[in-house]
């Protein structure tokens, strides 16, 4: 009888306390807000018509979303009362330090953009007249520099989207994250989910104008997921083992079913049929953005949890 045992005394080595679901959720929300910032800035800079109402809702929603993301991050901290320490230093080698500061600046940018959005609906919220006086002054000042703010938000959105991937890929002890593909994948996925969020509030005509863009983003996302798997497969023995986590078992099921099929292929097919003026049931049309958002969320969970499971 051949014996090959290796084990750690469970008493002296309880389960390693790594990241929890809050981090996956935080990365999803970070990508979503990054997507809203990028798409909003691009549409305004291109003077695109028909998107004002949906952009107002999406950008006003982005501010509480980013706060929820930060609360999730802080709730995952072992010592949340020390979270102010993030802002007393800048550690150039730490992706998390970069992310803390990017989030801070992006929040300020979003507050400024929100003031201009509130200006447009001040008549419907006149009961807020007194506090809105300050908002109005800031908003009017910001509106005069709207293009400059949009260029800034575009850069911040890009940085935020890239950061959500870089946060993981700078941790080589987890082979599944040891890939340069994660940063562009999370950026593109973030823009795609931001677009899907915007589509929730769009009329049919401007929605259809966005379809070629969102379909292209989805195609790039599929290519990047393929690129991630190939990159892991060829890089080293450890990353090859990590890639196998994505190709089978519960992570493979979630990736192929939740992300690729239901999160990308089906909603893109629905939108493509609408764009080609085929008759599509209304329920299908309405569900497509929700599928994309869910796919983006599942992608973050798959990458985070499979990464934590992979080891050198």
């Amino acid at each position, binding site marked *: 009888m051949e014996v090959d045992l290796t*084990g750690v005394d469970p008493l002296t080595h309880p389960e390693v306390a*790594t990241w929890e679901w809050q981090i996956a959720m935080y990365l999803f929300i970070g990508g979503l807000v990054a997507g809203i910032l990028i798409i909003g800035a691009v549409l305004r800079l291109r003077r695109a018509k028909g998107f004002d109402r949906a952009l107002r809702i999406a950008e006003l929603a982005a501010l509480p979303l980013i706060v929820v993301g930060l609360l999730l991050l802080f709730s995952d901290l072992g010592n949340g009362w020390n979270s102010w320490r993030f802002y*007393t230093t800048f550690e150039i080698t730490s992706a*998390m330090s970069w992310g803390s500061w990017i989030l801070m600046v992006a929040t300020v940018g979003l507050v400024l953009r929100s003031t201009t959005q509130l200006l447009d609906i001040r008549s419907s919220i006149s009961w807020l007249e007194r506090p809105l006086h300050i908002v109005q002054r800031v908003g009017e000042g910001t509106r005069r520099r709207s293009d400059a703010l949009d260029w800034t938000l575009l850069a911040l959105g890009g940085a935020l989207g890239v950061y959500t991937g870089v946060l993981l890929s700078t941790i080589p*002890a987890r082979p599944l994250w040891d890939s340069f593909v994660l940063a562009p994948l999370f950026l593109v996925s973030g823009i795609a989910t931001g677009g899907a969020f915007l589509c929730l509030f769009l009329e049919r005509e401007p929605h259809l104008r966005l379809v070629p863009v969102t379909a292209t983003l989805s195609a790039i996302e599929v290519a990047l997921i393929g690129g991630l798997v190939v990159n892991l497969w060829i890089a080293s023995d450890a990353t090859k083992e990590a890639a196998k986590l994505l190709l089978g078992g519960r992570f493979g099921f979630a990736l192929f079913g939740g992300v690729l099929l239901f999160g990308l292929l089906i909603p893109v097919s629905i939108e493509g049929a609408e764009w080609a003026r085929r008759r599509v049931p209304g329920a299908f049309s309405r569900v497509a953005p929700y599928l994309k958002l869910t796919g983006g969320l599942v992608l973050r969970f798959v990458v985070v949890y499979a990464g*934590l499971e992979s080891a050198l």
Partner: protein
Amino acid sequence: MRYAMAIDVDRCLGCAACLVACKIENEVALGGYRLRMREEVVGVFPDLIGEFRMEQCFHCSDPPCVPVCPTGATFQNQDGLVLVDPSRCTGCRACVTACPYDMRHLTPGGWVDKCTFCDHRLAGGRQPACVETCPTGARSFGDLDDPASDVSAALDGARLVEVLKPESGARPNLFYLESQLIGRSGLDVRATVLSAFDEGGG
């Protein structure tokens, strides 16, 4: 100065006295351990061979846990020790995730804890508690840059020296001395260790 430790696996009985000494010396919180014991058994019955291997922070020369820390709470001091400043630690666990050896843990207080090679004792010229306690003298500690140190002498006299997960690139400073390798075939360990010495300048 480059502090390092060597553990003679042939001498280790798995008594865990080092683990207990560490826990008492450093007042490690209930449920947490800075050291852990791994047991390996291989072979075809009845020709089995086994070993106990104590593991702790490897105080790597190129520690992956340091650059990921967003607040500078995890740092490497001038003697090469990798330490944590609890007052700066947010408990974000980036370092826990980045450690290829899973040798960090979260305390009930919310900060991350790990072996310090008993830096408070070193300041007084004493050895780490685990070294001082070991009843079989399996542990050697000292300055790797000093040829006369205990750890240098132990490494010089060893038949086989192993580091764990050399592929991590972290260049750990905890070495295992053995007469034969157990359960880790297919790796040219000796060459890897010599390479680690060269790169570390030790």
